[in-house]
């Protein structure tokens, strides 16, 4: 797209997009490290994750203030309006991803030992890989203004949901077999839920990227596959 007559407007939009990308990077890193802390029982790493969430929050506030200033100064229209509203929502989602990562890190400290079951760890890691992949792809779609890629992210969320459902079943089985693991299993269950919600945030971001690029709403035809209610 060609430049604005007022070039400072383009600079502001670029700065905004850069900050969103930076938030995305921080959220990804926090999430990956939180799960790594959880799986390996590394409480130092978990504490660092908790600490670093402040940076993401500060950046979020910075982005919000910048967006409001742009609305006041530029009265954005069309594509610009969509970019700015999308950026605001995406920044919210990323901030939430950070909070969820922080929560996983807190639980990693609470559990304070390795996940007893290798099988469970594999399940959590696999789900994390998928959700993290979703987050990466959607951030690339945002940077590349790629509506098709955003659509794929939305479609792939079902996979994350499916793994969450199977983890849920597995954890239930463990708790029924041995009541002594209930505390750690409940923590794990919340962690799994948090990871699943990170996938949901990636989907939200995908919908916003799609709208930002095309001006159309992404049809929400996929049915939610959280079957834990039926277990």
């Amino acid at each position, binding site marked *: *797209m*060609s430049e604005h*007559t*007022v070039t400072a407007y383009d600079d502001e939009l670029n700065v905004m997009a850069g900050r969103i990308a930076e938030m995305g990077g921080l959220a990804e890193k926090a999430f990956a490290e939180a799960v790594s802390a959880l799986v390996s029982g590394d409480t130092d790493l978990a504490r660092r994750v908790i600490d670093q969430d402040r940076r993401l929050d500060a950046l979020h506030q910075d982005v919000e203030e910048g967006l409001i200033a742009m609305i006041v100064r530029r009265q954005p*229209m*069309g*594509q610009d*309006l969509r970019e700015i509203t999308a950026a605001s929502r995406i920044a919210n989602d990323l901030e939430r991803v950070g909070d969820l990562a922080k929560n996983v890190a807190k639980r990693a400290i609470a559990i304070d030992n390795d996940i007893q079951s290798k099988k469970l760890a594999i399940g959590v890691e696999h789900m994390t890989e998928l959700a993290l992949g979703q987050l990466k792809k959607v951030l690339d779609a945002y940077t590349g203004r790629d509506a098709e890629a955003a659509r794929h992210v939305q479609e792939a969320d079902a996979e994350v949901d499916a793994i969450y459902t199977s983890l849920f079943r597995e954890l239930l089985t463990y708790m029924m077999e041995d009541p002594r693991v209930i505390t750690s299993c409940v923590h794990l269950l919340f962690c799994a839920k948090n990871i699943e919600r990170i996938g949901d945030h990636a989907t939200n971001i995908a919908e916003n990227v799609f709208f930002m690029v095309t001006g159309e709403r992404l049809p929400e035809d996929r049915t939610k596959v959280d079957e834990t209610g039926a277990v």
Partner: protein
Amino acid sequence: MNDMPKIEQATDMTDSKISANKVQVYYGDTHAIKDVDIEIQPRSVTAFIGPSGCGKSTFLRTINRMNDTLDICRVKGSIQIDGEDIYDPKVDPVQLRAKVGMVFQKPNPFPKSIYDNVAYGPRIHGLARNRAELDDIVASSLQKAGLWEEAKDRLDEPGTGMSGGQQQRLCIARAIAVSPEVILMDEPCSALDPIATAKVEELIDELRENYTIVIVTHSMQQAARVSQRTAFFHLGILVEEGPTQDIFTNPVDKRTQDYITGRFG
């Protein structure tokens, strides 16, 4: 603004108040308006936007044949109001302009009293049989223009002594006094401060119930605020026309997009 465009979209396009077909306007050798087709809905506000010299005011003036007053100006194609061709030789332009009123960029009250400014049209068109009827028309026109409270105690004072915003509402009252069906507004707020602008915009929104309004504006925010449909002109061409919300959030044409986002070279 959210649901209004949807109502407009549902409006049957055959119910147009104004229907323009292949309209061309020439100023001497200059082809100022090219092939403009547009359907304008009754009892709604349609905004014309576009850069200076794009033809939006020229096209607006074809709707009440204001261009007739320029010798070098020729209009081709057809413009119908309620299915009647307004360029038919049988149409009296003076009667047409009573039906299609106009408000200009700079408030231009007559150098007469506030009362006479509003009474002028009804008098020449013979709309009142006696002074009492004329008083009624003046009062109700000033009321509809939201000026009654400010003007009722100074009807004998000159219209030119009012503030700019009041003068513009006086001009709107003057247009309303001859019971028009269509009101054309050519940048009606560009000489007004934000408060006076807000009052005129509020008035436009009220008038929409009874009149078909077409407004030319350079302020896209104004177009977004007051209109249900927006038409974008560029280089004499009607580039795009549609529900206002669509034009400002997701226009179809690249030129519209560039214009509304401030990217015109």
